């Protein structure tokens, strides 16, 4: 049952045939892990908290720096120097007191990540480096937890969804198998705030759809966003049978 407060708060969801009371209850029951609370994680966390995702686990070991504020819209100038996970927890608690928010404020190793995955329904990869992305992907494959991946630099965004609960799901490593490769990130390439914000917002949209049981057009797909032309390109990713992370183990 939804409380009177919840019926008021989520009235615009309840009007949607695709969400309704059953969808809102599904959101309330859901547990989502957001890893990385920067330009992607800021809008993603705010939208999921606002939508009433009942249990959010937010992870970031970084402290807020002044150069983050150009795109990391969850924070304020007075927050500089504090841990982002603690800051966003406060922000989300003020936004929606009806949800639970737990923080991880240090770097997770594979073992801790595997433990946390036992207690979540969905993961959003909002990190800023290839090593974390590969570790999160491998852990989600192993734990069979669905993973929504976002990334952005300059005017470009990348968005993917892998439903690791499905045996035929491709994975991030099928697409990008290089772990040690130099990759482009915001601090070496620059990024526009609304570009990374668009991708983080799309991660939240796909998360809500998944949690209320709507089909995703992003499953085993990669979407590339061009912030200059506003074009989206869509590519199909097939599971690579030779993938060392998700391929058949002999």
């Amino acid at each position, binding site marked *: 049952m939804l409380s009177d407060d919840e019926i008021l708060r989520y009235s615009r969801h309840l009007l949607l045939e695709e969400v309704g009371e059953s969808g809102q209850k599904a959101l309330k029951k859901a547990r989502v892990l957001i890893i990385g609370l920067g330009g992607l994680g800021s809008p993603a966390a705010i939208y999921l908290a606002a939508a009433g995702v009942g249990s959010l686990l937010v992870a970031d070991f970084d402290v807020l720096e002044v150069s983050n504020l150009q795109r990391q819209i969850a924070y304020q100038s007075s927050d500089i120097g504090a841990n982002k996970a603690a800051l966003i927890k406060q922000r989300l608690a003020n936004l929606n007191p009806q949800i639970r928010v737990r923080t991880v404020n240090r770097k997770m190793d594979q073992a801790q990540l595997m433990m946390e995955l036992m207690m979540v329904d969905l993961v959003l990869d909002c990190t800023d480096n290839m090593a974390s992305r590969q570790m999160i992907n491998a852990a989600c494959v192993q734990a069979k937890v669905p993973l929504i991946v976002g990334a952005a*630099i300059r005017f470009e965004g990348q968005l993917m969804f892998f439903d690791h609960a499905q045996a035929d799901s491709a994975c991030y490593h099928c697409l990008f*198998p290089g772990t040690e*490769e130099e*990759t482009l990130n915001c601090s070496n390439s620059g990024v526009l705030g609304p570009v990374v914000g668009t991708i983080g917002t799309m991660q939240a949209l796909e998360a809500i759809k998944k949690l209320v049981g709507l089909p995703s057009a992003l499953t085993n797909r990669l979407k590339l966003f061009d912030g200059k032309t506003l074009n989206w390109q869509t590519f199909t990713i097939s599971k690579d049978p030779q993938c060392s992370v998700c391929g058949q183990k002999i």
Partner: protein
Amino acid sequence: MNITVNESVVALAEGSSIEKLLISLDKPLTGSAVAVNQQIISRSKWAEYKICEGDEISLFQAIAGG
């Protein structure tokens, strides 16, 4: 034969593989992804995958920022 690479027309020898295309374009073999007609081709297949006349190739880099 003619193909397109990121929407530009490129002439390529018949029967070329993706790996050969990347080398001829002087593109790095690491950190890149390749799609042929909107289907991602995993890196393990680049040496054997033969490109055909008219194929639309998309080449892009992994990005990690967030």
